[in-house]
């Protein structure tokens, strides 16, 4: 049973480059926490500090009820899965799995039993007597997973474990890891996970909660649904979701029924948006709306007029690229709707779903249209 508590964690490198800017994060017992962000956002550094592979410049890390700042990695009750597997090249799979247990001088029978059990769970029994160089990528990653599992750690740390696998294998390993986590939890084993990835699909599908990071700072910590529906700022809004959220820079005209001006076009946002808009919402604003929440129409009264530029056909849905002034908007709609669409003129009106659009402070990037309900 272990919580991970991070308080004001900082990492400053020798050349006074500050990689991590005093972040604080709590991971509950049994929670699957994903750290996600573009490369260079210090998510791996943060994980390595939790693991004890990287020194902490200031702040505090607690695992369970212990402050682990000065403990060596082996004494923190953690296990880690590395991006490039990091299997010991000269040891057979069996020895790779139980290296940690052998260091602890456990009894032979115990080691043997634990090895076989892990091999059974991960279906790597036929591989036990192979060397790492005789394994495929997926097999090697399963062995790496087994090496973590066998130790029954308080906390599992994953450092982009799937990024070396091909897309298909990645999808199946994703499910395997999620299943494994559920199973550990159901059996009452400690199963706290901190998982680092740059892949938002992995983050969204695997995480109980997701911590979005950028340049050594935490942008938002929330469950996947909240992150998608109520992004706290421009960065999170743009980072989560495929295709990326549309952003239109313009002028917000506040009032009980606010309007949004882009160039010479004006869109009525309606009273519902007015009600959730914060009173300090500035005029210089950015409107954000997901491609899934923009409907092309030719007759609707309230929308952005633009010229249809590119159409991407994906089978079940169609992605439209529409130029509204200098900005390109993207709309995703079901194929059937696209067939019914009258696009003879090449001009389209894009109608945003008013319930799903966001207004951001252009200067701070903050979302100023989040309703207070929680």
């Amino acid at each position, binding site marked *: 049973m272990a919580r991970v508590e991070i308080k004001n964690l900082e990492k400053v490198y020798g050349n006074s480059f500050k990689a991590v800017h005093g972040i604080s994060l709590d991971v509950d017992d049994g929670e699957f926490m994903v750290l996600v962000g573009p490369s260079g956002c210090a998510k791996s550094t943060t994980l390595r500090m939790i*693991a*004890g*592979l990287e020194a902490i410049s200031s702040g505090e890390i607690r695992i369970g009820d212990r402050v682990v700042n000065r403990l*060596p*990695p*082996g*004494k923190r009750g*953690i*296990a*880690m899965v*590395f991006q*490039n*597997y*990091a*299997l*010991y*090249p*000269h040891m057979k799979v069996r020895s790779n799995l139980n*290296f*940690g247990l052998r*260091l*602890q001088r456990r009894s032979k029978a115990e080691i043997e039993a634990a090895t076989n059990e892990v091999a059974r769970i991960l279906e790597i029994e036929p591989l036990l007597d192979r060397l*790492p*160089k005789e394994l495929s*990528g997926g097999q*090697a990653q399963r062995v790496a997973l087994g*090496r973590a599992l066998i*130790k029954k750690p308080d906390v599992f740390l994953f450092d982009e474990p799937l990024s*070396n696998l091909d897309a298909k294998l990645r999808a199946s390993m994703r499910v395997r890891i999620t299943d494994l986590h559920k199973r550990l939890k159901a059996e009452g084993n400690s199963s706290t996970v901190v998982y680092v990835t740059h892949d938002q699909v992995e983050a969204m599908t695997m995480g109980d909660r997701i911590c979005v990071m950028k340049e050594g700072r935490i942008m938002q910590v929330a469950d996947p649904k909240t992150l998608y529906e109520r992004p706290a700022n421009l960065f999170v809004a743009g980072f989560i979701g495929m295709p990326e959220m549309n952003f239109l820079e313009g002028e917000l005209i506040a009032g009980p029924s606010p309007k949004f001006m882009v160039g010479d076009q004006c869109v009525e946002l309606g009273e519902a948006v007015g009600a959730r808009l914060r009173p300090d919402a500035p005029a210089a604003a950015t409107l954000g709306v997901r491609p899934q929440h923009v409907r092309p129409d030719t007759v609707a009264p309230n929308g952005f007029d633009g010229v249809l530029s590119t159409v991407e056909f994906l089978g079940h849905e169609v992605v439209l690229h529409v130029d509204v002034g200098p900005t390109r908007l993207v709309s995703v709609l079901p194929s059937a709707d696209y067939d019914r669409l009258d696009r003879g003129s090449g001009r389209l009106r894009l109608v945003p779903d008013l319930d799903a659009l966001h207004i951001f402070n252009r200067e701070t990037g903050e979302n100023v249209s989040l309703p207070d309900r929680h």
Partner: protein
Amino acid sequence: MSAMPSAPPVLDDDDADMRAYVASEKRRERLSAMLRYTALFAVGLIMLYPLIWLVGASFKTNSEIFTSPGFLPAEPTLDGYVKGWQTSTPYNFGRFFWNTFLIVAPKVIGTVISCTLVAYGFARFDFPGKKLLFSLLIGTLLLPNVVTRIPQYILFRDFGWLDTYLPLWVPSAFAGDAFFVFMVVQFLRALPRDMEEAARVDGANSFQTLIFIVVPMLVPALISVALFQFMWTMNDFLGPLIYISSVEKFPVSLALKLSIDTTEAFEWNRILAMSVATLTPALVVFFLAQKYFIEGISVGGVKG
């Protein structure tokens, strides 16, 4: 050129042309390969000839060595080996080989162990003064050997180590050979650290990480170190000449010189025979280790 696509079937003339072209290309390639191999063989032979002559001459009689220029002995004889082995001293060559072994074995083992420890420290740990110490180490690489001979001699004399093997191997057992340390450090720097980090997460301390993870990955480098140290020590003449004075303690390098010094009419066939005998261990060791030398480096645990 066998993969050359054949021309469309309608154009029969082109097809024939193409076949002729392919054939002439093949002929040209075979000719150029022949020329290349002939040239390589000739140069190789020139470089190896002294060695081949040495082996051939060691089976000749003393008079034949200077009378016939070829390397094949007219009347092969083991006389050189038999008499050479006896030497003109009370000891036979076996004794000198044993003496060499008494120097080589501790020196090679000591070098491998001490270089691994020192290189691991330099490559993997941060400690105050690391840069300065490493520069000093590299500095000793650039230092000519001879300048330390006299101070070293005086030092070892004061230790009472003269006419023992200690001055010959003890410095190496304390990582005195900067070149080897440098070599292992470079090798370690190229090794990914992930495995070591995994071992630390698995609960290994620095020393366990070194023994269980680093050393097995270092094997190819350590074999090279052992091999070089072995050959250089076998061939070392100056060191034993300075520190060893009693004949019973002579290693083979000195013993060979001995047979030239003591007899007035040189028995060249004996000297050559013993030279061949002296070369043999080095050659055997090299060819045995060559396999590891080459294959070891490709040990892959990290996906490339």
